[in-house]
């Protein structure tokens, strides 16, 4: 059956934990995880609510395949209204806590209200209790993890928590689970901290049972694993190089946003790439990369485990960073590196550690530092603002200091914690913020990969690559090649990627499988596990329904088609080198066609027919 059919509702104000049955009608329409929790959120909160007020809710949610033997079946999501964007947020994470929540017997946990003092949720199968966390407040993610493991004397306890950045009000704070996996984007950690909820500690020993057709499920998941293993990206590229396999590839196509997106190619890319991570350092004869690592149930294993040079200036006298820990992925290497113009792999690894240690989204953090560097170089801010730190592009010292300050919300770190949009507005240069709907761009330049411009502009959670990863088609040729430099055909491409991704994000599976898997690989796995009939067509319809639900929430929250845009830089400044040289974003050509394909009015509002067709 896939679902446990149980929802845990945690009222932080009243300090109660109540079990209620899952709304199966909604599960049939929204599948699980992202879709199902978005439905709950949209039904239960006012879209205009202040995201950091007790009226906002935060939902931790699994998918029907979470905890099963399906490859990558360990995902969970956090759904809430974002304080960074004001839009609906859904941040997805791997690691092990998603499966643990499911093993404890729960499909989702809804947190509402605000606790009067810090608490954490302790969940052991049916037993759920809120415990005082005054001793954990003010601690980093890593310290909190250690303290909770010590307190409960249970090495198998899985923990998701917020760090000091969230407590200090950093608007892009993440929720880190299993030390270095994160529900990273849109400030979901900021919401958690605003509720005085420090951590969720889970131990589940019930397991996942009740698969509809076990024999067919084992066969279809086995088939799926074979496809992943035999595919060049999921079978070789990702396990060997991680997502960092993209660093040199994207740089070569001239779509590597560099120095706050002024440039489209980074001359230092080869020094911070996957290949560089695997090479032995001259200083200590060890490589940055120790091994690859998997999340729960994942047969791809793209995760990076790194070790730093103990003599590096950032960690010389800090043994807590000398052991192995979560290493750079493409997005973090790009945001902390190319976007800031820094090509020192060790400094980037250090900044990434700090993002894990204190729960900051490395994309938003890196991009905000990049914006600060442009503000600094153009004279909009100076040393009196930065506390004496020279925020020049390429400065490793500035990045390290920025991470240390933002992690605890100290000095200029308080400004950096605002995110790029508010930072640039504060210092009078809003056009220097590379954001959509207040969320920082990821690592693909929309001039060199035109479909990504439409992806960012229309993403329901602000600029994001994971809402429709058309890079797959436009650069890698998967499932088929599209010319990255034209706008032709992109609205349809973006729409289908958005719908497909929304369905995958609702299943418990990882979106990285879709390099190799089509819906014809995914549908049988869901169909054999879950009640009802789950065809590829139905999944696409579910995806489209989710997309429109999110869109309607955002419209009700106050967003209009005017927000479906990109920073002026991408319309005014042409790509200055590479295959896209001379190009600007062709968003204006794509947007009307996209609205039309979506069944939305020219103002970007889902029409009544569209809403009715999708049972909205």
């Amino acid at each position: 059956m896939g679902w446990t059919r149980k929802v845990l509702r945690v009222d932080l104000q009243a300090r109660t934990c109540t079990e209620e049955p899952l709304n199966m009608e909604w599960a049939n329409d929204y599948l699980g995880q992202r879709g199902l929790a978005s439905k709950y959120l949209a039904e239960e909160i006012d879209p205009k609510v202040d995201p950091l007020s007790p009226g906002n809710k935060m939902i931790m949610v699994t998918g029907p395949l979470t905890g099963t033997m399906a490859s990558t079946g360990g995902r969970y999501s956090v759904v809430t209204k974002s304080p960074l964007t004001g839009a609906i947020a859904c941040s997805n994470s791997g690691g092990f806590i998603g499966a643990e929540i499911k093993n404890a017997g729960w499909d989702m946990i809804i947190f509402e209200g605000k606790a009067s003092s810090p608490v954490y949720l302790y969940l052991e199968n049916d037993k759920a209790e809120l415990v005082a966390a005054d001793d954990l407040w003010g601690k980093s993610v890593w310290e909190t993890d250690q303290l909770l493991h010590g307190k409960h004397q249970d090495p198998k306890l899985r923990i998701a928590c917020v760090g000091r950045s969230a407590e200090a009000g950093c608007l892009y704070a993440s929720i880190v689970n299993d030390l270095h996996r994160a529900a990273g984007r849109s400030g979901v950690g900021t919401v958690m901290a605003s509720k005085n909820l420090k951590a969720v500690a889970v131990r589940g020993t019930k397991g996942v049972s009740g698969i509809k057709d076990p024999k067919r499920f084992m066969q279809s998941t086995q088939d799926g694993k074979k496809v992943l293993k035999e595919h060049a990206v999921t079978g070789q590229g990702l396990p060997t190089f991680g997502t960092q396999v993209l660093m040199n590839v994207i740089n070569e196509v001239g779509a590597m946003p560099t120095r706050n997106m002024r440039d489209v190619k980074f001359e230092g890319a080869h020094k911070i790439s996957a290949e560089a991570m695997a090479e032995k350092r001259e200083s200590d004869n060890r490589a940055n990369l120790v091994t690859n690592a998997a999340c729960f149930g994942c047969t791809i294993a793209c995760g990076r485990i790194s070790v730093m040079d103990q003599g590096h200036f950032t960690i010389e006298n800090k043994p807590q960073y000398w052991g192995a820990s979560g290493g750079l992925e493409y997005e973090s290497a790009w945001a902390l590196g190319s976007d800031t113009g820094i090509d020192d792999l060790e400094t980037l690894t250090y900044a990434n550690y700090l993002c894990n240690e204190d729960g900051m989204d490395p994309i938003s953090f890196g991009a905000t530092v990049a914006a600060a560097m442009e503000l600094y170089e153009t004279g909009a801010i100076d040393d009196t603002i930065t506390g004496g730190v020279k925020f020049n592009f390429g400065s490793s010292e500035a990045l390290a200091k920025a991470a240390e300050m933002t992690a605890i919300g100290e000095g200029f770190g308080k400004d950096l914690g605002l995110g790029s949009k508010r930072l640039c507005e504060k210092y009078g240069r809003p056009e220097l913020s590379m954001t959509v709907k207040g969320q920082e761009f990821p690592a693909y330049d929309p001039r060199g990969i035109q479909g990504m411009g439409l992806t960012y502009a229309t993403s329901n959670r602000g600029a994001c690559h994971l809402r429709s990863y058309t890079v797959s088609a436009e650069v890698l040729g998967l499932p088929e090649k599209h010319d990255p430099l034209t706008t032709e055909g992109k609205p349809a491409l973006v729409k289908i990627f958005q719908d497909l991704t929304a369905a995958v994000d609702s299943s418990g599976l990882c979106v990285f499988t879709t390099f190799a898997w089509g819906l014809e690989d995914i549908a049988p796995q869901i169909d054999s596990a879950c009640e009802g009939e789950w065809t590829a067509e139905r999944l696409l319809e579910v995806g489209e329904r989710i997309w429109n639900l999110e869109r309607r929430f955002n419209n009700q929250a106050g967003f209009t088609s005017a927000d479906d845009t990109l920073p002026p830089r991408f319309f005014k400044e042409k790509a200055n080198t590479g295959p896209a040289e001379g190009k600007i974003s062709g968003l204006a050509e794509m947007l009307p066609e996209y609205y039309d394909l979506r069944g939305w009015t020219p103002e970007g509002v889902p029409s009544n027919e569209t809403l009715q067709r999708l049972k909205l």
Partner: protein
Amino acid sequence: MQRALKLEPEKCTGCLQCELACSYENEGVFNPSKSRIRVFTFHYEGRFAPYTCTQCDEAWCMQACPVDAIVLNRQTGSKDVLADTCVGCKVCTIACPFGTVNYDADSGKVIKCDLCGGDPACAKACPTEAITWVDVEQHGLDRMRAWAAQGVDPARPQPSV
């Protein structure tokens, strides 16, 4: 030919497919906490290590059992727990030097690896060949070959002779 599970930690990614396969095979549920094989993560070393019963010839668990609930499977060499006979006294869990026999509170019996009767699910599920099902007498063969092959071009295919 008698076979044994060969565990190679350096190939393990910590994905837990083996634990899922084991619990499903033995309990009909995806539940790592019921798995006979366990993967251990050593965070600061960046290391993952699968571990399970190595089926000792002189099996201390079997010797220690007061009710003869642990018996030798002559076909596979495994030491199997007879659930109907086991009284849940846990003496075997004390006797095993490796900790690979464990008490299951739900059934009131102990559980341990029985090699799935000769077709271990964990080895089939492992995506990286960190767990393989090999000739028990040739466990060290790959390592021996690696030492013997010093100076040999690894890229050059060799005929099997």
